[in-house]
């Protein structure tokens, strides 16, 4: 499930961009320290392989619905977490461009959701211990299922969190969660089965691929990998905590920054629009005691005080009408400009001049 730009606030999108770029840098660095040269083309071609495989549909048994591959787990098991993360990042980047899956700001979130969890959490912490030396088909299946489910659940939870922290939608946290998690349980199970199947297939045909990856995948020693990962999880939790505080106090980072910098007078609409909206978000999400991502560190007093505030500011009818007229005019002008340029170009290139490159 791809996160979309339109559901994100700049603060959340930017934070996950930062986290993702940091992880790309970290993975690149660790890889180049002990890189076998032949891994460079291998990773690249595997990216194309995952991209192409995701386009193949298959029927999920019992449901008749159509499934698609995620691929993060397969890669993590077959080429190790660092290489797998870079490959997933490149696949998602290419998809963000060619399919506009989600968009550019959401790319950070998407790489995190679909790359980080399978590669750095599910594979090393769940798959490896459960699969052991990877000789038993049953252990591979159990390990793949468990790690597939965990990776997808974390990813789905992450989508919910990112969406709600961004404050663009009104869907209550629990409702959203109850919709997303079960769907992704099913997807995770399918991913687990496919992962196990592919690993089994590869093991039967070319066992040396698996052996070489499992011997080179842990960095220096198992312990250091473990501690690195724990560090990462801690970092993620800390980032998430900081983020949720930031987002709940200022659901819209830029908005908040603008207010700080320019003073409120210059932003008459936002002046009553945003804080009201954000209080509405707070109010809704604050009813979820168990999840604690809410502004425990925020300002509870102000919140209760504002609980009765209507969600929508009292818009002055005059302003609103002007806005409406202006909006329609602006849109018409924009489309007119576009049309004029195309008409002009069309006339100029009337003799179908052979364009280079096409």
């Amino acid at each position, binding site marked *: 499930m791809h996160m979309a730009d339109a*559901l994100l606030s700049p603060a959340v999108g930017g934070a996950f961009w930062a986290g993702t770029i940091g992880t790309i840098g970290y993975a690149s660095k660790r890889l180049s320290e002990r890189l076998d040269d032949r891994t460079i083309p*291998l990773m690249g071609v595997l990216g194309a392989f995952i991209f192409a495989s995701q386009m193949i549909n298959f029927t999920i048994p019992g449901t008749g619905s159509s499934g698609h591959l995620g691929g993060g787990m397969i890669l993590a098991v077959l080429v190790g977490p660092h290489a797998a993360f870079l490959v997933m990042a490149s696949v998602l980047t290419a998809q963000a461009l060619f399919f506009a899956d989600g968009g550019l700001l959401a790319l950070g979130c998407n790489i995190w959701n679909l790359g980080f969890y399978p590669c750095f959490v599910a594979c090393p912490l769940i798959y490896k211990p459960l699969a052991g030396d990877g000789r038993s088909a049953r252990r591979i299946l159990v390990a793949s299922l468990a790690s597939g489910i965990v990776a997808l659940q974390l990813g789905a939870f992450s989508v919910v969190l990112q969406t709600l922290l961004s404050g663009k939608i009104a869907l209550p946290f629990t409702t959203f969660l109850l919709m997303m998690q079960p769907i992704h349980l099913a997807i995770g199970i399918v991913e687990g089965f496919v992962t196990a199947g592919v690993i089994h297939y590869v093991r039967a045909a070319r066992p040396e691929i698996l052996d070489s990856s499992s011997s080179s995948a842990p960095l220096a020693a198992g312990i250091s990998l473990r501690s690195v990962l724990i560090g990462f999880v801690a970092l993620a939790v800390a980032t998430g905590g900081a983020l949720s505080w930031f987002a709940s106090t200022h659901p819209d980072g830029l908005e908040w920054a603008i207010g700080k910098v320019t003073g409120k007078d210059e932003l008459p609409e936002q002046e009553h629009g945003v804080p009201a909206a954000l209080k509405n978000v707070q109010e809704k999400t604050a009813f979820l005691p168990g999840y604690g991502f809410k502004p425990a560190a925020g300002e509870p007093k102000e919140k209760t005080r504002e609980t009765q505030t209507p969600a929508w500011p009292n818009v002055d009818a005059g302003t609103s009408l002007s806005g409406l007229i202006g909006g329609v005019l602006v849109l018409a002008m924009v489309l007119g400009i*576009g049309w004029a340029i195309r008409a002009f170009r069309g006339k100029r290139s009337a003799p179908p001049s052979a364009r280079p490159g096409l």
Partner: protein
Amino acid sequence: MRFEAAYSGIGRLDRLSYRDTVVHRLDPRAKVIATLLFVVAVVSFPRYEILSLFPFFLFPVLIGALGDIPAGFIAKKVVAVSPFAVFVGIFNPLFDPGVVAIAPGVLVSAGWVSFASILVKFALTISAALLLIATTSFPGICRGLRRLGLPALFVSQLLFLYRYLFVLMEEAMRVVRARDMRSFGKRGAGTLVFVRIVGTLFLRTVERAERIYGAMLARGFRGEVPSIRRETLRPSDAVFVLAAGCFFALCRFVPVPQMVGRLVRGLAG
């Protein structure tokens, strides 16, 4: 069928990106930065904002028109990827029932307004991303990312991915065609067959990577993918980024439609 549609869509975007227009000639870095600024500016609007977003349509419209990109093609692709945003946003009217006046006498629920805002933002950000790739070759974007400081190893991954994307999509498409030709109804398209297809493709990919590695060694590869600088930022690139940035800032901080509306009403009345 869907595979082939997706494949031809990518192929078309890719071919468009090698055209030669004013927009295509801009430095990839300039376009990447401008597009990111655009996306951030658009999504930074609060959840109930619609009208102030309209001026932002000028950016994709200009890029599309000057870059000679078919508008219908981009619009279709935007619609094709909209389901998740629609699915999540459609709940806004349900959970946000407060009533607002969008024009004197016209009342709607606030949820519809925020839903519409999501859709407008969606159309803006997605079309901007598609136009970026339609007007900038993928290798160009990669070189731009490298210069913007992304790790060389990651960027070389992107380049290899791009190089073999079409080769492997064709390979996968041939296998899928062979499967579908001998499958009837749901039989044959199940998970087990899929696993075998993916397994086979994986092994072929590994073998291909081995041959590529051999070809690289034969030409002196020693662990670094070298590249030669070819782009230099020209004044026009800087002007483009600056102009785009100023325009986005203007539209972000000044309620342009309101002002135009007031102006028009002032003139009329």
